[in-house]
């Protein structure tokens, strides 16, 4: 494969390199600040601020995952904060449990509550979800107030003990800040690992485009619940630490205003960055000190800052600094191994598929058999139901009747990510890439269903996870090579040309090692050079034994590249066979142009 095209070079001018903070550097400076600096500060009030800062860093780093990366707006995060604080207080005060036990239990219980909170998120999005989170915040508040002696109701709980830590040979309380600081550093480290793992990619993907995530092989349900659980764990941990630090809890400090503060910490510093929560928490913690006499207006200022931030600086302060691009691994020069399937018989059969939308029949008893290892195209006039067919095969829509069988197993009832895992991949008609993500990350998302690392493994960078990632990375680079996008690994997808984005989608689809690849109008909007390039890519894919199913309007292209052509009209198949036969079929001509009658023929 020698094709690297000048058209690609022509568009390089407008592209932007990936912005990624140097995560290791942030981590280092933070660790330094929070572990070493307090040693030089004598005033206990300011020492206390460091502890509070560290606690908020834990909470907001968690919030970053669910709101920043996974895109699930959480306006009631203080509720989770409260759950952690109250759980440990109740265990410690009423049941005399040691903080060493009650803190982890509180964190885990809050994680469980977060998991429950994630369940509505599976069914609703956007403003509804925001409402649910606000209602959740209120709910926790009301439960506490109604809890009588159990929760201390309006008066709260007192006498929460600080864990004993040895700093100078004898057990005392002053080392508490070391514990908190270490936990904060650990949290930031874990969050970094998660974000860099397949989970982080999955969260980014589902934030960008949920349907596209599904067909890329991501189980969106699992990913969303994981995001909620992880962020709740850290919120609970932070809340528990706060309770022990203050020695008391009161529901007054966990109202909607507190949720606003947490949200601001996240947004001010910058979502989706490692340093964002750190910087944001620092600013907000210092705010009462900075505001001094006008502190009474603090909440108003918070509200105003939120509005201004959201409108003018949605990426927070982090976007004001131009961090250098991440140093990536060198592109592999080995050719990619796409599995040879030519000796395997894995036909895809669409049998008697029907679908109607509100009385309009989009597909009627369509019957198509796709032979493995061939390029099979589907053409038909506009409104003939072609895209609906692809949507049904990939699982985004369920057919009203009929079956789709892959390798003689029914797949029409499966979820999109399951279908992808079986080996049926697709790309979309209107190019759908993950806009905020780099080329490389876009392609890596395709590997999601082939990787196995769990949350824990990813959080702590187990050896198996590291090995998996290396292998996936090598394959991704090789695929970028194959489709002609090598050297553009760090480029943000949104800044690429339309044709390049299309090619990127193909690379992503190939990453999941498919047997069959569905391409929905891949030539739409492409220049003729890009179309030629596309043809070469398709031939390369076919040469590797992957079956290609193509839906197109661009008839010359289809006739050129296909082994078989099927023609649909009004959702019905009207012709099928080799290109030459179909092109001259009178039924086909009539479908496209209308009856010629006496004229012209």
């Amino acid at each position: 494969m020698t094709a690297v095209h000048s058209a690609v070079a022509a568009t390089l001018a407008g592209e932007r390199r990936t912005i990624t903070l140097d995560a290791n550097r942030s981590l280092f400076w933070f660790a330094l600040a929070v572990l070493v600096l307090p040693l030089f500060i004598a005033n206990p009030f300011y020492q206390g601020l460091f502890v509070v800062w560290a606690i908020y860093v834990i909470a907001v780093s968690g919030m970053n995952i669910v709101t920043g990366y996974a895109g699930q707006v959480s306006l009631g995060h203080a509720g989770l904060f409260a759950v952690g604080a109250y759980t440990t207080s109740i265990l410690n005060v009423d049941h005399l449990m040691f903080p060493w036990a009650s803190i982890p239990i509180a964190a885990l219980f809050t994680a469980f509550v977060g998991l429950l909170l994630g369940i509505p998120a599976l069914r609703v999005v956007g403003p509804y979800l925001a409402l649910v989170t606000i209602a959740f915040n209120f709910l926790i508040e009301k439960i506490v107030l109604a809890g009588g002696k159990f929760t201390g109701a309006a008066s709260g709980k007192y006498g929460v003990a600080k864990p004993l830590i040895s700093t100078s040979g004898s057990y005392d309380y002053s080392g508490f800040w070391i514990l908190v600081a270490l936990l904060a550093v650990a949290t930031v480290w874990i969050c970094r690992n998660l974000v860099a793992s397949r989970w982080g990619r999955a969260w980014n993907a589902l934030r960008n485009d949920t349907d596209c995530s599904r067909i890329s092989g991501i189980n969106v349900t699992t990913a969303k619940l994981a995001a909620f659980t992880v962020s709740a764990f850290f919120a609970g941990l932070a809340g528990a630490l706060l309770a022990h630090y203050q020695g008391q809890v009161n529901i007054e400090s966990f109202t909607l205003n507190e949720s606003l503060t947490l949200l601001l910490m996240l947004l001010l510093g910058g979502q989706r960055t490692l340093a964002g929560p750190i910087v944001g928490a620092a600013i907000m913690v210092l705010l009462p000190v900075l505001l001094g006499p006008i502190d009474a207006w603090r909440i108003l200022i918070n509200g105003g800052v939120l509005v201004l931030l959201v409108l003018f600086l949605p990426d927070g302060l982090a976007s004001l600094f131009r961090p250098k691009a991440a140093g990536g691994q060198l592109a592999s020069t080995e050719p990619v191994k796409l599995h040879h399937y030519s000796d395997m018989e894995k036909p895809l059969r669409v049998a008697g598929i029907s679908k109607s939308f509100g009385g309009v029949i989009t597909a009627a008893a369509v019957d198509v058999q796709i032979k493995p290892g061939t390029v099979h195209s589907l053409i038909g006039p506009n409104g003939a139901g072609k895209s609906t067919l692809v949507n049904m095969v990939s699982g985004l829509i369920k057919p009203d009747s009929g079956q789709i069988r892959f390798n003689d197993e029914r797949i029409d009832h499966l979820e999109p990510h399951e279908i992808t895992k079986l080996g049926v991949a697709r790309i979309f008609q209107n190019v759908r890439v993950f806009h905020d993500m780099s080329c490389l990350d876009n392609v890596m998302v395709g590997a999601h269903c082939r990787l196995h690392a769990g949350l824990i493994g990813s959080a702590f960078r187990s050896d198996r996870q590291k090995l998996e990632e290396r292998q996936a990375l090598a394959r991704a680079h090789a695929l970028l090579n194959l489709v002609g996008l090598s050297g553009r690994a760090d480029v943000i997808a949104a800044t690429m040309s339309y044709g390049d984005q299309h090619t990127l989608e193909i690379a992503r689809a190939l990453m999941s090692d498919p047997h069959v690849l569905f391409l929905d109008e891949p030539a739409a909007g492409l220049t003729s050079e890009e179309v030629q390039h596309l043809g070469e890519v398709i031939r390369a894919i076919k040469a590797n034994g992957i079956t290609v199913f193509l839906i197109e309007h661009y008839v010359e292209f289809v006739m050129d590249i296909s082994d078989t052509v099927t023609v649909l009209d009004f959702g019905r198949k009207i012709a099928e066979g080799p290109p030459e036969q179909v092109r001259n079929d009178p039924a086909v001509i009539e479908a496209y142009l209308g009856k010629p009658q006496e004229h012209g023929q």
Partner: protein
Amino acid sequence: MAWQTVIQLLFSGLALGAVYGLVALSYSTIYATRNVINFGQGELVVLGSLLGVSMVVGGKVPVLIALVVAAAVVALAALLVEWLAVRSVKEVTRNMIWVMSTFGLGICMNQLMQKIWGTDPVRFPKFIGKDEPIQLGQVTMLPQELGVIIIAVVVAVAFEAFRRNTLMGKAVRATAMDRDTASLMGIDTRKVVYGSYALSGALATLCGFLVAPIQFADPNGGVLLSVKGFIALVIGGLGSPIGGFLGGLFLGLLEIGSASFISEVWKDVITFGALILVMLIRPSGFFGKLG
């Protein structure tokens, strides 16, 4: 429990529910044309009631005139929400940023109102009848409550009639369904949107005037109203204003019922619990479609 008490509770619940229903209605008018929910809507209601207090109690202005003036002010405030928090956001429906900006703006309004009117709830004199309950057969009830129910139902019905039967109402519905095609009919969709905001503000003001005499004009009550109004909308179904109103009635009954039969303290837990239940079972509500 005596049946008379039940009837009284019923009316109290309906009165409260009528208020929630009007809040839901005021959400709908914006949502229908702009696909946006103003998370600070409750603050507009509170603003209306506080303005009312200042004018009626402080300025001795007749209630109806105070209502009109307050409605005008709140309508302007609603337009301000659009201008500040929504319009500046590009691609309104795809980005959910307006959730946070309206939320933030609502908090700002809340704080400003607290600075002006203080943090304590203020009494709003009942303007329908006096403080003494009246006797209807064996049932005693506050005339204000009865008045609230009647006014709210009339407004809701009139609103629905407007939407269904007048040309302008149809134009508004068309704009909500398909903005581009609506403009092909010669409808100036931008004016429709602005009109919707103003109407939303007016409804919020009416709501404020109706709820304050029953409870209080509470500068801090905005968020709770926002949330409950939204819950009513969700129960009824986002696409259906009349559904939202009915959802509000249901919510009011649920709340008063829980307060009386279970406990005052747990009533909100039940209300919010109901929301989450609806979200899980039937996110599109009982009358509408998911946005």
